[in-house]
């Protein structure tokens, strides 16, 4: 332990700690801007580039950046001397001198660390004027908007992109005043290997990286009497949207979410959890088949569009491994525009499918050409959790006061297996719940009793839960020792995939989610942990909520969902049938 004094208060911290960490132990928050600590993922970004966190250290001639200065025995630190305060204010004023002052109309208004600091530091006029950065805005893609005129060069996005995700699209370019963060040759993101996970958007403390929004388009269709507008909500939305309305992280607001959507004017409120159950039927059938034949193992999950993009760009040689099942979002769209449109007797082009997703890659996914048969998109618009919250506020719907309402039938009924898709490990657990029943109940002729319950089969596979980047489990089902692994965060996925390429690891099934922790930490989720370093508590709370929601549901296995049973009976035949393949499966394209 190292002993030091901060503002005359003694404190002991482990060797290697920074002044910032030691101060936190004393309950002192030194202001930071560029620094971010992804605690639960063991990645800390300490570029020391902004100099907002400077403090005075006795005996040291210059001020020390507390986020990246290690403590030393006997150190005497003062965080709020006039010199430190003046230096911080000057740094902030200089940053503001080359920052657009359009806070009122900025999408990050009230979610911007620079804005918060300006307020906390009591900055009311900017003494410095001068040249302004003038860079082109990249907003032609489907998911992420880049406006580098707002960039403060904290370079958090680079760490998110290159270290956490190992996608490697963003880099510091140019020098001095013209320096910014950009993809190679300033290409638009959709011409790069970007996977649109949106972790850079979550990391950005200002409005430089935001999402491409579709609120206006959705308002338009909601007000168009010729259109029937239905909506699906992803599992992870219900455990996070409450944060936008002052609710505690981890509160489950499914009922209020449904009520709010109804008040916004959607004709039917459906659930992506329903199509998550459908995904499990298709995917578990593939898993079952591959285990039986012993071929093409492991099976990789394919629900996460960020992960699918990553695979296509970075692992073209593994293209045969993922399940061919579409993601729940796209399955929902395909069923809505076929089965449900037929049921309503309307033309698929008059049925508008809106998705509420915790994700930015879903915006990209919905626009993929293979998901627009005959030019009609299966999913028309994708709104993030944040965008929906903003629509609810704009419409004056008082979220907190809403009664709990239920999803509509038939695409709204779901199981606990569907809801756990929202946390890392959930898809695999859901697949195991179904596969276990099928394996234990295998018919004498080798066929599967798809929709029967095996009461004694396991239901809680806790080894695959949690925020750890890579999880492994061996599950005993009957005579089979099923080996499974889960990776969340693409850096972890890369590690796992390299072990498979080298033959070092062998599994039956692997789940991969692009965002660290899974969809609960998706790029479209509330900016609740923006700028502060205790985001892990929020993620932990969202994760707990997902499993609480699972526990609270009467049916927890996808194949026992009555409306899933019904759609196979009435429409699809059985899992992996010809029609199921046409509507619910896809293929992948190398992008190298």
């Amino acid at each position, binding site marked *: 332990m190292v002993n030091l004094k901060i503002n005359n208060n003694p404190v002991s911290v482990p060797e290697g700690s920074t002044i910032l960490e030691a101060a936190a132990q004393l309950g002192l928050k030194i202001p930071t801007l560029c620094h971010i600590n992804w605690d639960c993922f063991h990645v800390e970004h300490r570029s020391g580039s902004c100099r907002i966190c400077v403090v005075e250290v006795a005996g040291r001639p210059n001020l020390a950046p507390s986020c990246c200065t290690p403590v030393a025995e006997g150190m005497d630190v003062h965080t709020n001397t006039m010199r430190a305060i003046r230096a911080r204010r000057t740094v902030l004023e200089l940053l503001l001198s080359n920052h657009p002052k359009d806070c009122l109309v900025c999408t990050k208004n009230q979610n911007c660390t620079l804005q918060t600091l300006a307020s906390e530091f009591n900055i009311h006029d900017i003494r410095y004027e001068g040249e302004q950065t003038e860079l082109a805005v990249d907003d032609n893609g489907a998911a992420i908007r880049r406006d580098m005129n707002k960039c403060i060069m904290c370079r958090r996005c680079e760490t998110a992109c*290159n270290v956490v995700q190992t996608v490697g699209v963003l880099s510091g370019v140019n020098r001095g005043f013209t320096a910014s963060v950009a*993809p*190679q040759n300033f290409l638009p993101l959709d011409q790069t290997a970007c996977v649109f996970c949106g972790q850079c958007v979550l990391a950005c403390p200002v409005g430089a990286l935001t999402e491409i929004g579709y609120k206006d388009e959705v308002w338009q269709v909601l007000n168009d009497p010729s259109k029937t507008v239905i909506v699906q909500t992803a599992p992870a939305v219900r455990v996070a949207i409450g944060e936008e309305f002052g609710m505690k992280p981890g509160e489950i607001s499914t009922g209020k979410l449904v009520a709010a959507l109804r008040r916004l004017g959607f004709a039917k409120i459906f659930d992506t959890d329903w199509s998550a159950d459908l995904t499990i039927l298709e995917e578990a059938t593939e898993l079952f088949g591959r285990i039986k034949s012993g071929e093409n193992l492991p099976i990789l999950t394919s629900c996460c569009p960020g992960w699918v993009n990553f695979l296509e760009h970075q692992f073209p040689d593994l293209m045969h491994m993922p399940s061919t099942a579409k993601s729940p979002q796209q399955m929902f769209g395909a069923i809505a525009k076929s089965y449900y449109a037929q049921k309503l007797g309307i033309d698929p082009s008059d049925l508008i499918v809106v998705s509420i997703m915790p994700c930015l890659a879903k915006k990209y996914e919905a626009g993929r050409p293979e998901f627009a048969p005959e030019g009609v998109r299966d999913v028309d618009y994708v709104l993030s959790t944040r965008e929906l919250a903003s629509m609810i506020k704009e419409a004056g719907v008082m979220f907190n006061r809403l009664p709990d309402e239920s999803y509509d039938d038939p695409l709204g009924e779901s199981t606990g297996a569907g809801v756990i898709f929202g946390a890392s490990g959930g898809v695999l657990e859901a697949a195991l719940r179904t596969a276990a029943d099928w394996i234990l109940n295998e018919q004498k002729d080798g066929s599967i009793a798809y929709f029967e319950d095996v009461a004694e089969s396991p239901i809680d596979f806790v080894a695959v839960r949690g925020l750890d980047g890579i999880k492994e489990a061996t599950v005993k089902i009957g005579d089979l020792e099923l080996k499974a692994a889960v990776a969340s965060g693409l850096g972890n996925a890369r590690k796992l995939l390299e072990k498979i390429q080298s033959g070092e690891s062998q599994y039956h099934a692997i789940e991969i989610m692009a965002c660290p922790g899974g969809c609960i930490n998706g790029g479209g989720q509330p900016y609740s942990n923006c700028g502060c370093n205790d985001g892990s508590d929020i993620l932990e709370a969202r994760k707990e909520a997902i499993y609480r929601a699972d526990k609270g549901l009467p049916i927890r296995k996808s194949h026992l969902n009555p409306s899933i049973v019904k759609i196979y009976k009435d429409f699809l035949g059985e899992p992996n049938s010809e029609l199921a393949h046409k509507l619910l499966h896809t293929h992948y394209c190398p*992008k190298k």
Partner: protein
Amino acid sequence: MTCCCEKTESALEKLSRLEPEKTASLNAFLDQLPIGKDVESNRAHLIVALHQAQGIFGYLPSEVQQIIAERLKLTRSEIYGVISFYSYFTDQPIGRFKINVCCGTACFVKGANLVVEQFSRELKIKEGETSADGRFFLGVLRCVGACSLAPVVMVNERVYGNVTPAMVSKIIADCKD
């Protein structure tokens, strides 16, 4: 059903088709670099590789960046970051005669800016530009390590010392294709 599957020509295929000799020469250079699996140690070869490649191609087109990225197992963005950081590197084709005036402290104090202005007048191009006939590029550098000869001008590999504006037309006349 349409989709995004499209077989496209790789960077190496395209460059080999357009510039077979230069590409072979770049490949030969990259072949003899001790490149391994470790990205950290490969990174040490990046500047050398870019320098050589620019020597071969005259600039660093996107395909060259891609080939170097693949060989060194570095990302395209990192390579572009390095290219855009150093004024020596360029991703745009530039004049065959690269006139670089040193504007480091010593050269600047001894009037390098007047030399730049004179080149600019005579060649009718601004700093950072290439002449319409593709012969001359005018650039500035920050110190070439020959401060005792300040102001220094480099034309490709050739160094001129103690340059005055009056010497500019002679330097231009020296450039023969």
